[in-house]
């Protein structure tokens, strides 16, 4: 079975769901302000793109999400690597951070809004915060799980701590780091949307929230569809990157690497 047919099957299910949806709307005569049909949502998307009114929202959400994701990701990997290397840091800070992981970072949203204003900065901070924790914990755990015999095999040739970190521990942790990056994609979207719900002039979260006032459910649904698409593309991109970076792991595309 080639990749194209593999992609076809879920698309068939998707078409089925859309068909059921439009049938249900037609058969039960559900009014537009409760549940618009897929056609209405599609029309709203098309007109939104045609008059250009959707682009600023998409752009704002993407910008918040990407910059927050990048900042949170870099911080998580750098801090995770240094924490896994330092015993004192691990003893004093790690349990605290594990405790913090259990608290919903989203709850800090209103506070962050107060601190960083109602513009883009507060959303970026919120996104960075929610992305940070899973990636951070995964980085620390991944580094700690480096096979000790691999480290010994390098130590006997007088490998320095820096060499061990960069050439052995980090590549060895790459699988877990990517798992953290993967979780981070959906968390970044959640962070951006929640930030926009709270207060914004732009963004898909703002679009959904503000359309609820005028009960235009078709617009709200088109916002959700666009968010889903962004999440899907992000997750696919990370998956693709993972196959490229961790080419040595079983299941990775071996035949492409030579």
């Amino acid at each position, binding site marked *: 079975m080639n990749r194209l047919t593999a992609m076809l099957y879920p698309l068939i299910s998707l078409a089925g769901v859309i068909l059921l949806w439009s049938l249900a709307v037609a058969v039960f005569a559900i009014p537009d302000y409760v549940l618009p049909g897929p056609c209405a949502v599609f029309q709203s998307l098309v007109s939104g793109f045609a008059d250009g009114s959707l682009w600023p929202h998409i752009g704002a959400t993407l910008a918040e999400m990407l910059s927050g994701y990048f900042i949170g990701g870099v911080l998580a990997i750098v801090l995770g690597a240094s924490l896994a290397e330092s015993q004192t840091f691990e003893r004093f800070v790690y349990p605290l951070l594990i405790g913090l992981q259990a608290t919903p970072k989203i709850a800090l949203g209103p506070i962050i809004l107060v601190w960083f204003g109602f513009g883009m900065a507060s959303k970026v901070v919120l996104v960075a915060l929610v992305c940070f924790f899973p990636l951070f914990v995964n980085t620390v755990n991944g580094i700690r799980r480096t096979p000790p*015999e*691999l480290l*010994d*095999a*390098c*130590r*006997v*040739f*007088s*490998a*320095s701590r820096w*060499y061990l970190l960069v*050439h*052995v521990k980090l*590549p060895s942790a790459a699988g877990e780091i990517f798992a953290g990056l993967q979780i981070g994609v959906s968390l970044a979207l959640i962070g951006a949307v929640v930030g926009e719900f709270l207060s914004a002039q732009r963004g898909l979260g703002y679009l959904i929230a503000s359309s609820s006032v005028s009960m235009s459910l078709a617009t709200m649904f088109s916002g959700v569809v666009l968010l889903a698409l962004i999440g899907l593309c992000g997750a696919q991109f990370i998956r693709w990157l993972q196959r490229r970076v961790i*080419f*040595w*792991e*079983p299941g990775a595309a*071996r035949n492409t*690497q*030579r």
Partner: protein
Amino acid sequence: MSAALALHGVGVTYATRRGAIEALADIDLSIQPGEFVALLGPSGCGKSTILKLAAGLLSASRGRIELAGHTVSGPGRHTGVVFQKPNLLPWKTVLDNVLLPARTLDLPTGPARERAMALLELVGLAPFAKDYPFELSGGMQQRVGIARMLLHDPDLLLMDEPFAALDALSRESLTLELQRIWSQHRKSVLFITHSIQEAVFLADRVLVMSPRPGRIIEQLPICLARPRTLGTLADPEFTALCQHLRRHFTHE
């Protein structure tokens, strides 16, 4: 001339939750320059601990360890090590894996590359220099490990059951290959094994260890002519030596 490796009254005691465990008791051994010494013992007797001590990965609780007259205080540039598992870095090519000691010991890149290629030639893997370890068989990976061990031209080779995880055929060919490499380069070797035949076939001298706490209970010189071949395995003298050593392990 001082011994390539010497252990004087070395003991190792581990602290565990159930109290102190004595892994090694009072080990005295020495390896002369150019000598091939096999250390034979049942599993868990502490033979790998001796190798870790010599490699500088572990420090002894008692006694003194010397490499060419200098006390060992950590990993040094005069030893090369291979383990039971090849332990190659999966994200580096075969060539880069062989070059690892050059990177960690800061050797000049140009000559190191040339030497790495020559060593890959020596172990028959020159065409695979640009491949990754996962593309090689277990025996080939262990050959890469041997090339890596030799890169920085160490005086003492420490080998911890290097062929134990291989299938019988790769094991045989690598044993012959190791003898060939050793006869070309004449390094001092400490070869740890639990195979009596392997020990007798390769070594100038076999040291037998007792179960824990490990002690050396016999030293047996092997005077079979070199190079030894597969024919040696059928030599009555070879079988007699193996029989003699086997007595240490059959009393249970």
